[in-house]
C-alpha cells in the first residue's frame, strides 16, 4: 500500500486519541456504576440509546442540540433514579449476578419500547450547524464535531473528578461497595448515595448517546456494540478508577488507531486482545485494587 507519511501516522495517532476520548465518555458512566455499586449495568447501552432518542424527540418538537445537551442527561438521570429505586435497590448485597441479569432484561425492555414508539428503522441525526465541517489540525483535516465531543468529555470528567475527590462521596461509595452495613453504622444513608451514583452514571450514558447520535445516527440497537467496548475500557483501567478509565480509553483508542493503519480488519479484536493481555499480566487492570469483587 501507498507509503506511510509522517503526517498520516500523526493524524492516525490523533484520530486514535480522539476515538479514545469517545470511548472514555462511553465507559465512564458504566465504570462509575460498575466500580462503585458493584452493579454490572448491562442496560448501560440501552440508557445510551434512549439518550439519543430523547434528543431526537426533543429536537423534533422544536428543541435544539444545546437544549438537549442539558435536558437529555437530566431526563435520563431521572429515569435512572427511578430504575435504581424500583429495580436495582432490592438486589444490593446479592452479588454481582442478579443486577447483571436484571439489567440485561431491562435492556431488552428498553430497546423494545423504543422500537415500538420510534420504529425499527434508524433515524438520521444532523450535526448541529455550527459544528459541521472539518478543521485543519496541523497534520490534516478533522471533523469539528469530534473535537467538540472531546471537549465535552473533558468537562464531564473534570466535573466528576471534582465531585468524587472534593467531597466525601467517593470515599463513601468505595466503602459502600464493599461493606454497606458498616457504612450505614457509620451514619451514612448508603441507599441514597447509591441512588445518586446510579443517576449520575445513567445521566452520563444518556449524554454519551446524545453526543454519539450525530456521529452515527440513531437506531434501537446502537447501545449493543458500545457495551462491550465500554466494559473493556472499564476493566482494563481497573474498576472504579476514573483515572484508569481515562488512561485505558485513550490506550484502546490508540491501539484501534494503529491496528487500523496496519491491519484494519483486526481493529475490533485488537481491543479484546489488549484486554486479555493486560489482565493476564495484571489481573486487576491498571489502577484497580486487587481483590475487589472476587
Amino acid at each position, binding site marked *: 500500500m501507498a507509503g506511510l507519511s509522517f503526517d498520516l501516522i500523526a493524524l492516525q495517532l490523533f484520530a486514535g486519541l480522539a476515538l479514545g476520548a469517545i470511548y472514555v465518555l462511553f465507559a465512564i458512566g458504566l465504570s462509575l456504576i460498575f466500580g462503585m455499586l458493584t452493579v454490572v449495568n448491562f442496560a448501560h447501552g440501552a440508557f445510551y440509546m434512549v439518550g439519543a432518542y430523547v434528543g431526537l424527540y426533543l429536537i423534533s418538537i422544536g428543541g435544539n442540540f444545546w437544549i438537549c445537551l442539558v435536558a437529555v442527561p437530566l431526563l435520563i438521570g431521572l429515569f435512572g433514579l427511578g430504575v435504581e429505586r424500583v429495580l436495582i435497590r432490592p438486589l444490593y*448485597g446479592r452479588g454481582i449476578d442478579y443486577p447483571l*441479569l436484571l439489567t440485561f*432484561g*431491562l435492556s*431488552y*425492555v428498553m430497546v423494545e419500547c423504543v422500537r415500538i414508539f420510534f420504529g425499527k428503522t434508524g433515524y438520521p441525526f444532523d450535526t448541529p450547524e455550527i459544528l459541521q465541517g472539518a478543521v485543519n489540525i496541523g497534520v490534516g483535516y478533522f471533523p469539528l464535531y469530534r473535537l467538540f465531543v472531546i471537549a465535552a468529555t473533558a468537562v464531564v470528567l473534570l466535573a466528576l473528578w471534582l465531585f468524587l475527590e472534593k467531597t466525601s462521596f467517593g470515599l463513601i461509595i468505595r466503602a459502600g461497595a*464493599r461493606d454497606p452495613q458498616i457504612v450505614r453504622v457509620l451514619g451514612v444513608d448508603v441507599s441514597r448515595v447509591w441512588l445518586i451514583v446510579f443517576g449520575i452514571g445513567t445521566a452520563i450514558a444518556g449524554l454519551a448517546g446524545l453526543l454519539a447520535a450525530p456521529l452515527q445516527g440513531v437506531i434501537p440497537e446502537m447501545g449493543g456494540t458500545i457495551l462491550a467496548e465500554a466494559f*473493556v475500557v472499564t476493566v482494563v483501567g481497573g474498576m472504579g478508577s476514573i483515572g484508569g478509565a481515562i488512561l485505558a480509553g485513550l490506550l484502546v483508542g490508540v491501539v484501534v488507531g494503529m491496528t487500523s493503519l496496519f491491519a484494519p480488519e483486526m481493529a475490533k479484536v485488537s481491543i479484546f486482545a489488549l484486554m486479555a493481555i493486560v489482565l493476564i499480566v495484571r489481573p486487576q487492570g491498571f489502577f484497580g485494587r486487587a481483590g475487589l469483587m472476587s
Partner: protein
Amino acid sequence: MTDATESIKQPDTTTASWYEFATKHRASIVAVVILVFPLVMPFTALAVNILIYGLYALGFNLVFGYLGLLSFGHAALLGTGAYVCGIAIVHFGWSWYAAIAAGLAGGLLMALVIGVLAIRTRGIYFAMVTMALSQCVYYLFYQAVDLTGGENGLRGINVRTIDLFGLRIDFINPMVRYYVIAAFVIAAFFVMSRILASPFGAVIEAVRENEMRARASGYDVTLTRLLTFVLSGGFCGLAGALQALHLSIVPIEILHYETSGLVVMIALLGGMGTFFGPMIGAAVFLVLENIVSVWTVHWQLIVGAIFIACVLFFPAGIWGTLIARGRR
C-alpha cells in the same frame, strides 16, 4: 461482602410430600420427562435445542454455580466443540461418533488453553478475561474461512443416516435425532452427577466458599479451578458437537459473546448451583422465546420483563426456588 440471604443448604425434617416423592424417584422421573418431552414441545427441533442448551448450561454451571467463577467466555468452548465436530465431518469425512468425540476433546482442549491463561484472575476480571479470550477465538475461527466458512458459517454437516451397532438409522427423522442426542445428554448428566458427588465435587465447593481456607487445608486452588474449568469445557464441547449435528451447520454466531451471555442467563433463570436448574432454565428460556416470538415481534419486551420479574421474585432461579419450597 454483605449478609447475603441465600438459601442455606440446611436439610430439614419437614419436607413437602411432592418433593420427597420427586427425590425418591428422581431417575425414573427424568427418564419419563425425556421420553415425552418432544411430544409436549411446540416442535422437535426446539426440544433438541433445549437438550443441547441445557447441556451447555450444565457444563457452565459447574464453573459458575459450583466453583463460583463467572465465565463470560463459554461460547468459545461450545463453539470449538461445534466447529471441531463439523470440520471433522465436512473436511475429513469422519464418522459421526468420532466427530462427536473430537468435539468433546476440542472443548476440553480449548478450556485448557483459556483456563491456563485466565485462571489467575478473580471475580469480574475473570469474566472479562474469558470474554476477551473467547473473542480472540471468535476472530480465529472467523478468519479461518477455508476451514470454518468464516462469516457464512460452516455448512454441509449432513449426516443423513447413522450407524448404530450395525443398524443404519435415519438421522433426518426428527424423533430419531431427538433420542440419539438425548442419549448423549443423559450420559453427560450422569457423569456430571458423579463428578458432583465425588470427593472432587466437595473440593470445588470448598474452593468457592473460601479460597484461603481451602489452600490451608491442603488443596491446590489453582489446579482445582483449572481442572474444573477443563471439565466444564468437555460438557460444553459435547453440547457444541451435538448442536453441529442437529442443525447441520455451525454459525459463527455460536462463538459470539451473546452466546456466552445467554448461558449465564439460562443458569441464573433455572437456578445456579442446582443440578437440574440449567436444563429447566434452558427449557423455560427457549420455550418462552419461541412462543412469544411467534406471537409478537415484540417478544424481547415480554422476555425482558419476565427476566426482571424472575430476578426480583425468584432470585434463586426457578428450580432453586422450587427446591427451597420443597424442603420447607
